[in-house]
Every structure is written in structure tokens, then in C-alpha cells.
């Protein structure tokens, strides 16, 4: 059986180092299979977070050869196995242990976004009517599996650590799904401008590139939200009206 070497980051918040593990490679294997094999063969306490192993739950995010990916959807035959494959935890979040990071900030930040607010129903039985075309956009955003890879590559979070001022691409997508949900009557534009820091995004599209669900985060979610914020708060006519209202 062919062998490959995996250079896996081992450690905790106090620091760590890479450790090399050699393991057998069979047809169709993904990086998560290799990690599990290493656990069973030589490192039973190697910490890794995973669930569905089918790209649907977004638990096994990591950086593989420096690229943010889901371990369960990264095939070994797409990697150069002559060299060691490096597997590291995401960098935008505090490390817990080995490949596992503390992503709880995302859950807390989501809670601060105004929740879904139903608009009045369309039919006497309390239900709504909408064409498929009206829900397509919101559905695109709702494909998100919350793997947080987009948060991981966003330089505002990864390099500038502005977690207190900016909610990041995942949560902008979440806000966009609500704003573009035809059944929602909530208004999040003021929050997006101020509390959620949408202005920090300078549309480098790194998030879009790493999204395993193929959501066009920047073009379909963030830019339209930015436009709405601009229309609402920076339109000269509206600004003038606001001055008079005061």
C-alpha cells in the first residue's frame, strides 16, 4: 500500500509543534480518513472535530497545505503526496487543541443580529405566497454549513482581529439571507453599518474563493448589502431630509 506523510499540528493554547505521521493511502481517501487512521494507529488522542464526513455539517474545517478546506472533502489524490501534507487548525480562532479551534465567537456574534421578523401573512390560513425566483437568493445563502472557513480567511478577522467590530463574511451572509427573505420585515441596515461593521469589508473576495458550498458571498450577499446601506445612509437627498427632520 502506498504511504504518505502527514505533518499535523499538535498542541494547545500554550503552543505546539508539527508532528509527522506516516499512514497508508487507499483509493478515494480524503484528509479526514487519514487523520482517523492516524488516530487509530499511532495518536489516539489527536483532537479533531468532525461529524457528517460528507461536506454537509461544516465541522472539520482546517488548513491543508496552507489552504482553508473541509478535511472530509479534500481528496488525497488531489494533493502532492511526494511531500508531507500539512494539516493545521484554522488561524482566525483561538486554538483549543491540535486541529480543534474555539469557534464560539461566531455563535455569540450571530445572536446580536436581529432575528427573523415575520411580515403579515398573505393568506387567511396564515401562510405566505412567494415564487421560486423570490426565494432563490435567500436559499443560496441558506446553503451555508457554518464551517467558518470564510471567517478564517477574512483578513479583517485573521490579521486585524477586529472580532468586536466586524461580524465577518459568514454572518454577513446570514444577515443577507434575512434581508432578502421575502417573508421577513426586519430592518438590519443600521446595525450592519454600525454594530456589524460592514464597511470593514473591502471586497477582496477571499471568502467567496474558499466557500465549500460555492456561495457567491461577496457579489451576491455583501455588495448588495453595502449598496443598501449606502442608499439608506449616504444618499445625499436622504441625508438632507434627515437634517431637516432633526
Amino acid at each position, binding site marked *: 500500500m502506498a504511504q504518505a506523510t502527514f505533518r499535523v499540528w499538535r498542541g494547545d493554547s500554550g503552543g505546539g509543534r508539527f508532528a509527522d505521521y506516516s499512514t497508508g493511502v487507499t483509493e478515494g481517501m*480524503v484528509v479526514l480518513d487519514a487523520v482517523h487512521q492516524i488516530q487509530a494507529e499511532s495518536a489516539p*488522542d489527536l483532537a479533531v472535530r468532525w461529524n457528517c*464526513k*460528507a461536506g*454537509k*455539517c461544516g465541522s472539520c474545517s482546517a488548513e491543508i497545505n496552507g489552504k482553508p478546506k473541509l478535511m472530509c472533502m479534500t481528496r488525497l489524490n488531489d494533493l502532492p503526496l511526494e511531500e508531507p501534507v500539512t494539516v493545521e487548525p484554522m488561524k482566525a480562532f483561538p486554538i483549543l487543541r491540535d486541529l480543534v479551534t474555539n469557534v464560539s465567537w461566531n455563535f455569540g456574534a450571530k445572536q446580536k443580529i436581529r432575528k427573523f421578523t415575520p411580515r403579515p401573512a398573505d393568506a387567511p390560513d396564515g401562510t405566505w405566497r412567494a415564487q421560486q425566483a423570490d*426565494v432563490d437568493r435567500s*436559499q443560496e445563502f441558506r446553503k451555508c454549513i457554518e464551517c467558518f472557513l470564510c471567517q478564517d480567511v477574512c483578513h479583517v478577522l485573521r490579521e486585524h482581529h477586529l472580532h468586536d467590530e466586524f461580524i465577518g463574511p459568514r454572518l454577513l451572509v446570514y444577515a443577507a439571507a434575512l434581508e432578502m427573505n421575502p417573508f421577513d420585515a426586519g430592518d438590519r441596515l443600521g446595525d450592519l453599518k454600525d454594530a456589524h461593521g460592514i464597511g470593514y469589508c473591502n471586497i477582496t473576495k477571499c471568502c467567496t474563493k474558499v466557500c465549500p458550498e460555492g456561495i457567491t458571498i461577496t457579489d451576491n450577499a455583501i455588495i448588495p448589502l453595502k449598496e443598501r446601506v449606502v442608499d439608506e445612509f449616504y444618499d445625499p437627498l436622504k441625508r438632507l431630509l434627515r437634517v431637516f427632520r432633526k
Partner: protein
Amino acid sequence: MADFPRYQYDVLVIGAGGAGLRAAIEAAATGAKVGVVSKSLLGKAHTVMAEGGVAAALANVDDRDNWRVHFTDTMRGGQYLNHPRMAEIHAKEAPERVQELETWGAVFDRTKDGRILQRNFGGHRYPRLAHVGDRTGLEMIRTLQDHSIHLGIGFHMECTVNTLLKDGDRLAGAFGYERERGRCVIWEAKAVILATGGIGRAFSVTSNSWEYTGDGHSLAYDAGADLIDMEFVQFHPTGMVWPPSVRGILVTEGVRGEGGVLRNSEGRRFMFDDIPPNYKEQTADSEEEGWRYCQGDKNARRPPELLTRDHVARCIMREVKEGRGSPHGGVFLDISWIKERISNAPEHIKRKLPSMYHQFKQLADIDITKEPMEVGPTTHYMMGGVRVDPESQMSTVPGLFAAGECGAGLHGANRLGGNSLSDLLVFGKRAGEHAAAFAREQGAGRIDEAQVETAARQLFAPFERHGEPGAEAPYQVQHELQTMMQSLVGIVRTEAEMEQALEEIGRLRQRAAAIAVVGNREYNPGWHTALDLPNLLTVSEAVTRAALERRESRGAQFRADYPEKDPAFGAVNIVVRKEPDGGMQISRVPVVPVPPELKAIIEEMK
């Protein structure tokens, strides 16, 4: 008194999949103080893997549908071992539970007139599954998650419950540990809801993740509650079979609902060769009629690929066994053929089955719009579980409730696709409501500190055994259990093999008791695997003993030594209970009689 972090709740929910979240939402809505403990992060539970849809007789696509038809379909699919009152409640309440999700932000696919779209599925007479492409479970769990975080619920993510704490006969709380730091935690609670999902990890080929180790089943059993229908493990007919690393990953029944067909190596649609008598009337005579059904022709009957899961799984096994399988031990599932019938087939397939397209493309180098998939049965769902009161979902232990997959009664001998998502909504809600009422009426129990001490000792014992002679790591024991259960208590069962399985379980139990783990307590998967093993062994034994007791073939249970149905067994459910001396007691109880008004409905729909 042990110095562990303690939390006090009115209602503690164990599990944060669809059932757990729905229960927590309902309990919180009554004003109860609610805590949720989950082994994983929020939104990652197995509900996320549900693909095809949620069954509810909304009648948006076919106005002939109503709760009575849904009820009848569910009973027929379960071979009449279902609890009729649960099947009735489920069919009646599912539409409201689904529509309610929209008021919490869910966005389902739409009909042309703007309502929630519904699709065909196995065993459902009319298009009944509300869906979002093939990611319905994600839509549901996200909706419940996003709604629940604004209700003041206390979430304990990445925590595992090991022991239910009792005060005399009633529940008083739970004891477990935090993954992150490996610390013990005590959750004091006036009522506890189990919503821990299934037992798929007891088998080697499964669509379930590491979490599904039968925790709720095992916790309830150890707390003295009855388990019922444990012999009925659903093997979903279509899991991936190749490459080896993806074996078992689910291929949604939605593929067949959209017109996908099963063929053997000779190219024959073998499902036409074996249609059970009680479904003959409802099943298409020709490929032509089957296709018309998938296209929404109300006068056509469904293709045999959409017969119940137990039957389709067995037909696939037969083809493979008789040498007509695909190269890697499955059969062919083909959706690409619809290009002969519709012009924009590849786009249509990608739109209707996006995650299937993605999954095969990425993991198996197969383009499902161009070529057939290889599929075979995979362990998918546990029909059996905690025996509950149909109205309240309370188990036979006061204060202990169960909902979703770890509860039992609704599905009988076989679950229809789509009925699990509606099950978790309908009975999750009821469990939350009644657990909150129980908490209000009963007040708090007293935590037994001696029980806590014992549980804590057991928790850390695997670390202390490190270095002892005969100690081994947990992974090999788990692997052997899974392989053994798959081969001896799988789709085809015999008495001799299951007796052998019981002996193996005994041996594995001894090895499990000697397991040692290395490393420290923080996020140590070896340790977690060791702690989950006793639960897997308990449910494996329960499945095996119940399957031995049922000397007939019915629904998901196929006994090669008793290949026919036996009316005597059609009149009983099998109950599993822990005896005071710790042994496992198996007994037969009469099935709950169908009241005359429901019987009349079943007769009318025949």
C-alpha cells in the same frame, strides 16, 4: 459534595438535533428555564444530513392528500406495529409544525402558486415531502437553531452526558463532561428530555457520524425505562459503496423521487420483479407509468423504486448476492437517463439534487448527470427506542422524556422517508411542552451525591488503567464490534449468527472494561470513544436480543430462518428492560389496538 460545576434547569434537553431544539423551543416558550447539552456544536447534529424532505399532508401539490392518508401510509409502512395514537397525532400535527417553521425563517422550495412545494417519496401515496432541494435537514436545523438562540436557553456545546441522576424513582438531573477541558459537569433538572438520535455507530457501514452511539437508548435503559422495537434497524437502500472511504454515506431517496431508477448489472430494473402484495394496487405496471408518476401525473402509480426502504434494501441485497451487482458490490442508481425524457436534464438534476451532484463529483469522480451511481444498503435509522406515552412523550420513568429517533412507537417495523423530520417536530414539541408541565408540577428532585461520585470514578477510570497488563486502546474494540454487528445482526439475520453475536458482545464487554487511554483530559477523542463504547454495547445487545425474540420477518427485520410474516408476532411489540440484577430482560407486549375510527380509515384506504 463533589466540587463540579452545577447548572440548574427546569428542563434539560440532551441532544441538539431537530428533536432536541424543537423540544427546547417549546419548553422555553412556556417560561421554563431550559438547558441543552449537545455532543457537537450547534447545527451539526445528524438532522443536517436529512436530505429529501419533511412529510406533512399539506396537500399543496395534490389536493387529495390529508392526515388520514398520511396516517394510513405510516401504519402500512410500519407493518401495523406502530402505536396508532402516535401515528394519528403525527399525521394530524405535521402540517402545522412545518408551516410554523416558515414563521421562524425557513425558506422552502415553492409551488407555481407560491406555496411550499412537495415531492414524492417511498411509501407516501401523494407528493408529501416539503423540501429545500436535497438539503432539507440543514434548512430545518438552521431554522430551529437560529430561532432557539433568542429564547434564553442555556447551551452546553461539546458536552456529553454519561449518567442520568435519579432521586428514587424519578429523574433529578444528569452527569457528564465537557469535551474542551475534560471537566465533570452536573446538570440538575426537574425534567429531562432525551433527544440523542440513533445507534448507527454500532454497525460498520452507516450514514451516521461518530455521535450516534445510542446514548439516549442506553441512558434510558440504565435509568430503568422500557425500550421497544429494538429489533428494527433501518438499512437505507441507497448509500455510497465506492470508493471505500465513503462507503455508507447517504444517497437521498429524492433521487428516486425525481425519476432515478435502480438497475442490476444486466441493465434490468429489478424492482419490477418483486412487488409485495399489499403494495400491488399502488405500484406502477410499467416503466412508462412510473415516469409519469414522477412527473406529477395524478393518474399514474408510483414506480417500484419508491416502495418502502426495507423492501428496496432487501431487493438490492438479493441482486448482489445472486451475482447481478455492480463492480463494487452494489447496484446502479441512474438519474442521468432522464435526459431521454426532458431537454434540460443536467440543469434539472443539479437544481433538484445539488448536494448529491456535488457529493459524487467530489468524492467519487462521478458526474450523476452523465452516468449512474453505485449504491448499496447503509445503516441509517433506529425505529426502536424509548417507549413513551404518545401524548406526552414521557417514558416509563417519571420525569424522563424522549423525542425524535431515540423515542419509539411512531414508525413500527419500518419508517417511511420524510417521517423522521416530521416526527422530530411533532413529538419534539410535545416533549418540550409536557416536560415543562412536569417540571412545574413536580419541582426539583434531590441529587444523589454517591451516584455522582461513582459516575465520576468511572469517567476517569480509563486513564488510570494506562500501563496495566491487558489494557488496550478503544478504537480496535469499537471497530470489531461494528464489523461483528454488520455481519451477524445486519440486514439478513439467523438465530445461530445472533447467538454468536451475543457471545461476541460478552467478550467485547470484558475488553471494553479494560480499555486504557493515553494523553490528557482536554479534547481527547480516544477517551471519548472509550466512554461511548458501553452505550454501543448496550444497544447492540438490545438489538440482538429483540431480533432473536422476533422469530419472523417483518419490516426492517429479515430472518433467513423465519422468512415469512407470522401473525402471532404481528400482534406484539418486543420490550427490553434492565432487571434489578443488571441482566437484560426481553418480553412481548400486545400491540396497542387500533381504535374503531382509525381502523375504519385504514380499511377505507386499502
